[in-house]
């Protein structure tokens, strides 16, 4: 089975083609590709979230790169939610209509389900069940994944996402926005002792996160400091340690509570070196296997939508002929294909 996947839930316009035998054939984000003929060789600077003008040229390009014609496709998957409703509708309209025109089934995929299944695109893929720590600019959650459509949210952020706290703290330290990776880089030159930061929610039972107070603690903590290069590096170091302590602590608590000894770390923050170092060390000591999908599949992309859609289409699921998208869609309401809701 060969499926076209379309992601337009927020900032990125992403398109991919996956095949159940050959794997991933092609994938691209508009923000990262050079488009050719469609715009006469010049790629216009289109606004973020202008999915309408970005999507079809990207579909053409990805089909070409995949060496696939529409006649060889067996289905079209698009992000059905959750997300920005206007952005979702662009992908849903295009995906549903293309499938209609090509005479193949379509399916609206849950954006977070796609994130959770993205590690299965890798080799070795984690076997079910696993615990997923999903930490990015938009999400911070721990999810127990038992199988396709079987998800239990163990904990999530009560306020800011982990990546958002990184980015905003970076901004406060004069590193621009979004500056999470720059902050991590600066932290490598830093060390302990400059200021004392909280580990939000770490001492409390449960697996929820809260990062808004950590950002504010930095803002208040640096008020009376002379922010020379060394001090900024030390502050970055303290912030990153606090963040990593919480993420590692809660992840291992999830492992302990569920007895599931496979941990998948996804989302842009999953690329953080210090987080990986600490997780790999602490988890290995406990005999826990840790999986890190490649970074391009940690952030929003079309490949994960194509993959999750393919799994559901193969099981015989398909969307109706109407165009549907939902801004809010609770992950825990999902069911395995064929199960009654």
């Amino acid at each position: 089975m060969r499926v076209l996947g379309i992601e337009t839930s927020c900032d990125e316009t992403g398109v991919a083609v996956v095949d159940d035998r050959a794997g991933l054939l092609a994938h691209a984000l508009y923000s990262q590709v050079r488009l050719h003929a469609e715009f006469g060789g010049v790629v216009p600077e289109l606004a973020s979230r202008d999915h309408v003008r970005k999507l079809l040229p990207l579909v053409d390009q990805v089909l070409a790169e995949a060496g696939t014609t529409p006649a060889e496709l067996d289905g079209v998957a698009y992000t059905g939610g959750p997300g920005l409703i206007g952005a979702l509708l662009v992908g849903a309209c295009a995906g549903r209509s293309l499938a209609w025109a090509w005479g193949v089934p379509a399916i609206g995929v849950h954006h977070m389900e796609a994130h959770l299944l993205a590690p299965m695109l890798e080799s070795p893929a984690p076997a079910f069940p696993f615990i997923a720590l999903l930490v990015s600019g938009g999400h911070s959650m721990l999810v127990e994944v038992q199988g396709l459509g079987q998800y239990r949210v163990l904990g999530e952020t009560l306020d800011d996402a982990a990546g958002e706290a990184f980015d905003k703290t970076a901004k406060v330290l004069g590193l621009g926005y979004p500056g999470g990776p720059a902050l991590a880089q600066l932290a490598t030159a830093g060390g302990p002792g400059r200021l004392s930061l909280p580990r939000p929610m770490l001492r409390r039972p449960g697996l929820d996160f809260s990062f808004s107070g950590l950002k504010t603690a930095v803002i208040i903590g640096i008020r009376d400091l002379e922010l020379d290069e060394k001090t900024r590096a030390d502050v970055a170091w303290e912030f990153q340690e606090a963040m990593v302590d919480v993420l590692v602590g809660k992840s291992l608590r999830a492992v302990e509570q569920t007895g599931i000894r496979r941990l998948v770390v996804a989302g842009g923050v999953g690329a953080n070196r210090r987080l990986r170092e600490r997780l790999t060390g602490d988890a290995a000591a406990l005999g826990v296997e840790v999986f890190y999908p490649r970074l391009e599949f940690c952030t929003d992309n079309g490949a994960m939508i194509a993959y999750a859609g393919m799994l559901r289409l193969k099981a015989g699921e398909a969307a109706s002929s109407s165009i549907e998208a939902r801004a809010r869609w609770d992950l825990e309401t999902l069911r395995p294909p064929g199960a009654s809701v």
Partner: protein
Amino acid sequence: MTRIFLPDAAATAALGARLAPGLAAACQAGPVVVHLEGPLGAGKTTLVRGLLRGLGHEGRVRSPTFTLLEPYELPDCEVMHLDLYRLADPAELDYLGLEDLLRPGGLVLVEWAERGGDRLPGADLKLALDYQDAGRCARCTAGSGRLEPLVAALAQAGEPASSRRIETK
């Protein structure tokens, strides 16, 4: 303009809760737009969280920085919580379907409203938060006549003792 000292996050949330009944009533006649301004960590989302609690929302209130927009369907009104922090250009507002939000029963709460420029509808109520001593201060200004009584009422007695120290100009 009413100025209120907020000693801690609980006081910021309480101010939001106190605004809830008045805003819910005001938006029945036509959409109400609230601009929230102030630096990072000043308590904008905390205030919105208190307001949403006051309107009867029991679930989480996450930062809309990444999603740009978080909708809430509540018994008395439909709330749109926007955060324009990541907006690179006011023209990007066109892709958020803002005009659909402006209808009776609609309460539009906009953080980092200054980034929306002229494309953002004007404020019926402006809440400017900033750091002050060990806490925060809020300056509440009515942008349209119908919200003036609400702002004036904030300066009256009846507020929790924790958010005392009020002056009206």
